[in-house]
């Protein structure tokens, strides 16, 4: 199973991924149409790309009042019947990663669908901060471990 992985050490927040995504998905050249969002933290100078994590039991699915979000059986992706969306934005609030985006033209909330297995953001990332890799791959594991250790350390201090 392949997913997008980020190396935030390398990401310089150029925003090309957002432009490519908006062009690919919404036919617009504007970051606010993008399914990948760079969270920018001015305090620490951080740039962290965020996108749908395709949770195994997605809260957005539970919150959708139109029951249009579903887990795809084969790819295990969290997908939507966008045409039925009424734009209530409940899934946007339910998403713990803030990865559901309101598309201002279609007035539907959308999420990353990995471009059907060929994510354009990864392809065009100039810094090489994004990678499309098998989630069992070591690099990703290491990334998760570091994240996990930091959280552990944080909770110990409580």
């Amino acid at each position, binding site marked *: 199973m392949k997913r997008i992985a980020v190396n*935030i050490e390398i990401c310089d927040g150029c925003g090309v991924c957002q432009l490519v995504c908006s062009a690919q998905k919404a036919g617009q050249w504007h970051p606010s149409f993008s399914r990948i969002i760079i*969270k920018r933290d001015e305090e620490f100078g951080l740039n962290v790309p965020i996108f749908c994590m395709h949770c195994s039991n997605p809260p957005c699915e539970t919150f959708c*009042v139109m029951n249009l979000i579903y887990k795809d059986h084969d790819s295990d992706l969290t997908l939507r019947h966008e045409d039925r969306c009424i734009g209530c934005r*409940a899934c946007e*609030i339910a998403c713990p990663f*803030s*990865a559901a985006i309101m598309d201002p033209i279609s007035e539907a909330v959308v999420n990353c669908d990995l471009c059907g297995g060929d994510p354009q953001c990864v392809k065009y990332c100039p810094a090489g901060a994004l990678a499309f890799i098998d989630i069992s791959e070591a690099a990703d594991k290491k990334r998760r471990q570091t994240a996990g250790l930091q959280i552990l350390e944080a909770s110990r201090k409580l």
Partner: protein
Amino acid sequence: MRILIIGNGAAGNQAAASIRKYSPECEILMFAREYYSEYSACALPDALAGWIPINKTYLKTLADYEQQKIKTCFGQEVENIDINNQCLEAGDKKYGYDCLIIATGSRPIIPPINGSLLKGNFVLKTPRDIELIMEHKPGRVVVVGAGNIGVETAGALRNRGCDVKIVEMQDWVMPLLYDLKSANRIRSLLEKENIGVFTGERVIEVQGEQRVERLRTDQQDLECDTVIWAAGVKPNVELARQAGLKIGSLGGIEVDKYMRCTHPGVFACGDCVQSLNVITGKPSLSLLWSSAKRQADLAAANCMGQSYEYEGNCSVVIEEIMGIPCIAIGLNLQGLNGYEVEVIEQESQDLYYRLLAVNDRIAGYQCIGSLDGASSIFTMIKKGTSLSEARRVLLNQGLISTMAWYIDSRRYF
């Protein structure tokens, strides 16, 4: 294995869908009083406003039930549940079960006052209600109750060009969700939309000869041709009570954290149950779509032999009034009555927010003007994050870089 589900709403259908994840084969029978296929109650105001067609509010067709291999017994009122012999009676027939899931939902409250049965009184609970309201050709409307359904209904009819007034018994709009200050912002938004808002007024009676002509409150007479009752909903528990299942102090069916009723083999979920609030741990009714689906998912899993615990209710209500997003998460001051509450608030021309904390723990959030950061705050409230913990994460470069989704919520702390 044979599972019977009473109710064809969000909870009943989610339960059926979740059972199918565990067992593609077991027998599922669904009973419902009405013939509708599943519809989204949350989309009804949008359909009433004319933003979406009525048929879009239906989430399933009858063929979908067949495809999910759910046997439907629609139009059949369940008369009796015999929990000792594990069977129920509907339409002179007896149906035995291995597991029973009660998802009877709720119904709108219409107080027994004079004139509440006159032509021109409506509720908004099913797609049929929209048709009835539109056939009536409403011109001057009074909406009784300024909860989220009342406010949305008022906005919808205003969009249809009606003259709309809202009457609320309590002192401010959406009293269960917002505090006075944030509610006043919403009130001014409604008034900008030319919706008359009258709070602190009790409805005495509806007057009229053949049909509704005016609504009398304890302070004034409001001329109108249509009255919409949005004064809250009440769990449907009569069947469960008759069967001998315990009904909780708030009027919902009592369930444990596994969504089990007080009798083995019987589960309940959705609007008809009383569960615990995730923040206070006290009994609460959660008459929300998301809670219904979450509870149904767990009830179904547990009736298939799993043992998943329900974390508790946490209310989230999002409204868009005059294009301004408004959101209330968790509890307001009224809901936190008896606790010492710390209030963090900020106000500008376009934005108002307040964050409530009890013993350092984030317990409620209300914001008028933006949804930014609301999803992280919702997660924090559900997880029981404390204010100091949130601040520590937000002020630590290493932590925030691994939890970047919290960045948007920094301005609230």
